[in-house]
């Protein structure tokens, strides 16, 4: 639903980055999207295609790394993948574990054609 505005934010940042790199030609952008980011990856890809069409970014490839939710246990320090919303520690049973990954919505990198 809001994926289009997210794509626009990505493109705005790329415009800025392109300026900083003296108009370098970017061939690929890598995004990192956490499972809790509230972003639908298919919608994001579709929105991306729509936004770059007939612009200077038309040739830009999109790569998305999906980041699963991970938790850390404050009692035994175990780090684990929280599958099926089971956030209790699988090692010691502690229930109040802390979210450490899965909320990302980041531009990780761009690739430059030299």
């Amino acid at each position, binding site marked *: 639903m*809001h994926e289009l505005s997210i794509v626009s934010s990505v493109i705005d940042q790329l415009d800025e980055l392109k300026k900083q790199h003296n108009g370098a030609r970017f*061939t690929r952008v890598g995004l990192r999207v956490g499972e809790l980011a509230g972003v639908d990856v298919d919608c994001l890809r579709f929105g991306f295609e729509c936004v770059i069409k007939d612009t200077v970014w038309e040739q830009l490839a999109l790569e998305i790394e999906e980041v699963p939710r991970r938790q850390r246990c404050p009692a035994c320090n175990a780090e684990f993948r929280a599958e099926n*919303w089971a956030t209790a520690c699988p090692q010691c049973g502690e229930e109040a574990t802390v979210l450490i990954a899965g909320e990302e919505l980041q531009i990780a990198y761009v690739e430059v054609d030299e």
Partner: protein
Amino acid sequence: MSQIVVEKKVLNENQKIAAELREKFREHRVLVVNIISSPGSGKTTLLERTLERLDKSKRVAVLTGDLQTENDARRLAQWGFPVKQIITGGTCHLDAKMIEKHLADWPLEKIDLLIIENVGNLVCPTSYDLGEHCKIVMLSVTEGEDKPLKYPSIFVKSELMLLSKVDLLPYVPFDAELAKQNARSVHPGIEIIETSCKGQGLDAWMKWLEAKLAAVKAGEAVSA
């Protein structure tokens, strides 16, 4: 071919404005809550009951977001506190820039509590930081108990869940215990208050709000 490491938040611009807003709120000791739910779960009604109960000496302001109409602002204005409608014109969430713009002519030093009623939507508002102290998610008993599992992000990011319309529990096949258990499974520390517009839980909700207000007034950092 070479790679440039960027490592920046996609919503960097929003984040920047949100950080500026948060700093202003801190400076003027304004408590800001961002209320999020599906359409129709009772955000505006809860706000009416809240404004009605708030001591008139409290300096409260409300920003309410919708795609169209000023109806909510009109409903909320009758309690005598300043209310402003943010019409997003189709956008499914409020962003920090909209908040900044609508606050421009409100003197923050004269506000103790700013309530933001987000656009009815459990997904998109989750991604946009508005500089608030905390997000509050509302789930009504006419929805499904599994909403926290279907839309986990907002339940993970909210400090408090208001389970609304509990006066309807005798008439709907809704398992309140299961709903609470689901919310706690995605967010172990989430606080939960059951409310209804008939009055149930409103004391507990007002108490929660008053405690936050007192903490902010005392200059304590209230969560994120």
